[in-house]
């Protein structure tokens, strides 16, 4: 706790505000990886797809899965899985393909034997899949962990949360040109907004996106099954403007985009807005909308 206090005090004294926030998208960025089915039993298949920032149509992707388990103190991925040299524990997936999607088959693994390391806080075991995305001189390494459906699991496989809409908030839009009630930003159209103002935004997911699941928890001598509700978080991204919050949630879905900060380099301009929903067990989905910012 003292370290926390010292860091907090240090933040007061010298923490830098000069870095761009993670919600500001510039250049090559991987914003999400989605599996059609985020939890698979051995032998089952799914499609993995990447959400890559626009303007990188020439991006190529190398897919592989890592067979090394992680361990406490090492983080969520075994550090050796990040090596870019050919290694016996890195098995390429569809080596002939460079697409942003790939088919993945859950290998025949026995998590309870320890070959996948220790479970996470959701009592889940995962196979890490790596995607190295290259575009021009830029490169992003991404890991997505596919959850293994245990034969003894008392619950159905996890599903991806479902985002229904990205909306404007009625009381924060008049200056930017909105009037009346808030409304969903259409997917197929570009919403025109005035530059230099703040826009209220909100995201919504279907009620059944928040699933409940059962996990082992408690005293190691006597672990018990407990049922908890998923915590779904919405991650926001924009290619211009500044978002007040980088992460919101279903209980507090509002956000604000301030077009006076980090404005587009010239107007008119089209900016991309993304919201990515994550649950705790690898479930992912996203929405993308576009705004046309005019003077």
């Amino acid at each position, binding site marked *: 706790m003292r370290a926390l206090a*010292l860091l*907090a005090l*240090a933040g007061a004294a010298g923490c830098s505000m000069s*870095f*761009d926030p993670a919600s500001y998208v510039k250049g090559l960025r991987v914003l*999400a990886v989605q599996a059609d089915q985020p939890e698979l039993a051995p032998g089952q298949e799914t499609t993995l797809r990447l959400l890559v920032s626009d303007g990188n149509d020439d991006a190529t992707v190398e897919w592989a899965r890592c067979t090394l388990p992680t361990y406490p103190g090492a983080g969520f991925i075994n550090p050796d899985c990040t090596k870019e040299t050919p290694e016996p524990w890195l098995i390429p997936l569809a080596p002939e393909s460079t697409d942003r999607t790939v088919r993945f088959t859950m290998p025949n693994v026995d998590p309870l034997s320890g070959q996948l390391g220790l479970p996470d*806080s959701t009592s889940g075991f995962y196979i890490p899949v790596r995607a190295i995305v290259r575009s021009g001189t830029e490169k992003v390494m*991404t*890991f997505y962990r596919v959850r293994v459906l245990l034969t003894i699991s008392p619950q159905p496989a996890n599903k991806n949360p479902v985002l229904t809409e990205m909306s404007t908030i009625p009381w924060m839009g008049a200056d930017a040109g909105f009037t009346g009630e808030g409304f969903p930003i259409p997917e197929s159209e570009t919403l025109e907004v005035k530059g230099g103002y703040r826009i209220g935004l909100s995201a919504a997911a279907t009620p059944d996106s928040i699933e409940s699941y059962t996990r082992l928890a408690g005293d190691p001598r006597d672990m018990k099954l407990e049922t908890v509700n998923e915590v779904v*978080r919405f991650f926001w991204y924009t290619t211009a403007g500044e978002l007040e919050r980088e992460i919101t949630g279903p209980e507090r879905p509002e956000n604000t985009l301030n077009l006076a900060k980090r404005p587009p380099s010239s107007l008119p301009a089209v900016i991309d807005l993304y919201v990515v929903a994550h649950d705790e067990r690898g479930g992912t989905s996203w929405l993308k909308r576009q705004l046309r910012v005019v003077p």
Partner: protein
Amino acid sequence: MRCAGVGGTLRRDVVRVHRTNRPVRLVFLLFVLGWSAAAFADDAPAPKPQPTLTPPKLMRFVEATPPEALKTRERAEVILTIDVDDQGKVTAVTVAQPAGDGFDEAAVEAAKQFQFSPGVYDGKPVPVRITYKYKFLYKPAPPPAPTPVAEGAPPPKPKGVPLAGVVREKGERVALPGITVLLDDGALETTTDDNGRFELPDVPPGPHVLKLRARAIQNADVKLTLSEGKRLDTTIYVSPRERYVSVVRAQRPVVETVETILSGDEVRRIPGTQGDTVKAVQNLPGVARSPFGGGLLVVWGSAPGDTRTYVDGVFIPTLFHFGGLRSTVNSEIVNSISFRPGGYGAEYGRGTGGVVEIETRKAKEKGVHGFAQLDLIDASLFVEANLPKNVSIAAGLRRSTIDAWLPAITPNDFQIVPSYYDYQLKLNWRATPKDELEIFAFGSVDILRLALKNPDPALQGQVNSDTYYHRILARYTRRFSLWGRPGQFFATVSTGYDVPIQVRGAFGNTDFVVDVRLCPYTLRSAVRLPLTDFLRLDAGIDFEGTRFYIEAKGGAGGPPREGDQAGGGFGGQNTSDKTTLWTNNLAPFVALNFNFWKGKLLISPQLRLDIYSFTGYQGTPDSYSNTYVQFQPRLTMRYQPLKWMAVKASIGAYGQPQDIVSMSLRFGAPKTIQPQHSWHYVFGFDFDPTSTLHIEAVAFYKDLRQLVVRADGPYQPILNNDGIGRVYGADFLIRQQLWKGLFGWIAYTALRAERKDHPDDPWRLFQYDQTHILTLIASYKFKRGYQVGLRFRYVTGNPTTPVTGSYFDANAGQYRRINGEIYSARNSDFHQLDVRFDKTWTFNTWKMSFYLDIQNIYNYRSAEGVTYNFDFTKSEPLAGLPIVPALGLRGEW
């Protein structure tokens, strides 16, 4: 017959007694105890009259010769029991209620010569025992009538009058003995007594100059005028000549190979310490600099928790508030601080680092004193007093003020509200010149509230922390003489209640809770027996027992540990643990202290036997009770061939029990984790070219074994004892104690601290390895209460693990760092200049001080670490604290 009950009082008239030229009036009171008689009832119709008792009557009173003390006390009463026989003679006198100071003996002597008429009962003389109050009252006689002057003769010189007074030190109000008092360049002369009092009995009336002279004070000349026939009593306040309270370094019973002792008053004004005596330890050789000037004590390459801190022999868990704002023990009650970086004697153990021992003081001699202080960090109040019967008491209370203004200047994104208080209450009783009892209650509370403006929605609740400790100790010390040589015995018992860590929060569905509460109970006792002129035996026991209650929740990875690369902790299965653990650690120790050639050669073989006992999870299938024994021989040697030079060396084994968090079943290791142990090798020289200049050079090597580390693979147990470490280096110290207003020191350490986490791992740097640590401190006290000090430090930057890349964790929606070789890079070097300015105004009965303490006066923002952007593609240094001025105001009496 004996009179019972209390009857009336007969009062004597005042009798004037003259002694030479100093008349005294004595007042006598005669108490006569009443009487009671049994009433007898019978069947006779006419009852006989009750017999009556007539008490003895004082026929001849004898005046007592009053003792000298009557002049100072001015009145006294002695209650006597007097046996009067049937002749009226006094047969026995005893003191029923004494007055001391010679009054009892004087009253008895006089009473023995009293003559009474005998008591009469039923018409017959009877012996009687009475109670008699003999009262002494001091009253000077009126001046005699003027002597008639013959015609033509010169007028007689006026009669002299007494001039008396007391000499006290300005500000402190302490009475000063041994001061020469001169009247008018020596016409009359006297010296103040132990109470600071003086008297010149026959001073001619009129104007005079009283001169006070002594080495300890600045010369003082006081003009005064005496009136004819009128005594003058005065109080004179003088300024001391020495600008510090002189440090009397009594011969310490145990001589350590490497030890630095700091006196409270000397180091209170070191720049950059904000007047905190204990923080001065961080400026000594062998102590690494803590990030952001925090309070971590990293000594000779050992982890912060490996160095133990004691207050009056009792271990305390927390030395500083919030990692370094202020020490948890008020500097005002600190008499001295002893710092031993390693190679210390067998009386201390349970740590492979060093030892910091804070010794508190008793109340100042005589009177009531205290101080009140206010600055931007906290406010303090302290009071001390000497009571009758050799009892003294001191009490202090301190409360933070930083929480009043810090939230206003912290960024909008998060609010920090740290607040704290600490207290001390100490009672000393010197029952006899050889027996002393101390009772000391003290404690500290830290409360931290951290609020985020736009928290991640998964973060539930505030991250709060309340940590505190409370102690009460009782210590008995007995000094004795064994075959004509001084010996000592002491025993200290203590108990308390601690909450050293308490954090609660939740992220998503993962709670993180660490709540540790403990109740310690200790006994430390030792006897020092001077067996011969050249051999002293020290033996004793050091016992610490603790009842722990632990509640922990979170990822099975547990809290971060030294050497973690990925931040450790909060990962893995959600586990929890609630348990009670007992530790009982007993360590008998013995030391033979050989002293040859009149102290030129000191050799001390010592042995400490540490017995660690752990009991946990009782009543469950996982209950265990483990005992570990560490045999720790130690040897110290010091050879002083010349008065100004000595060679010293030591070698010793040191052990450390497992930390209690490691004993939780969450790590699957409580039954297998072993205590750590180490060997210390020390060799050095001492030079004392003058009585105030000390130069020291010491080389050291530490071998650390069985360090608790994480397993290097995904299998249980999560922790094991595979870690080893080594530390080697040298300390240099040049220290100038107070000399003509100047004091300070230069401390330099060069060291290398390394760790190896597993047998097949390469050696790596320790997290707090600092190759060079240089500290220069100088302070000079000018006249008129001005003092200026400066401190310069230069320290090698801490090791850091470089980032060689990053990856996007698509499940968590954030980037993770890819690390290079652990601790293979360093932050930039640290250097800083601090300046302090003090001004003290000394009045007769109190003092006021103002200080301005400026840290980092040239505003160099050293790099305390590195901050990265969200994907670790950009970085910039995490700047240290900027220039920080601190103002303070203090009043003391």
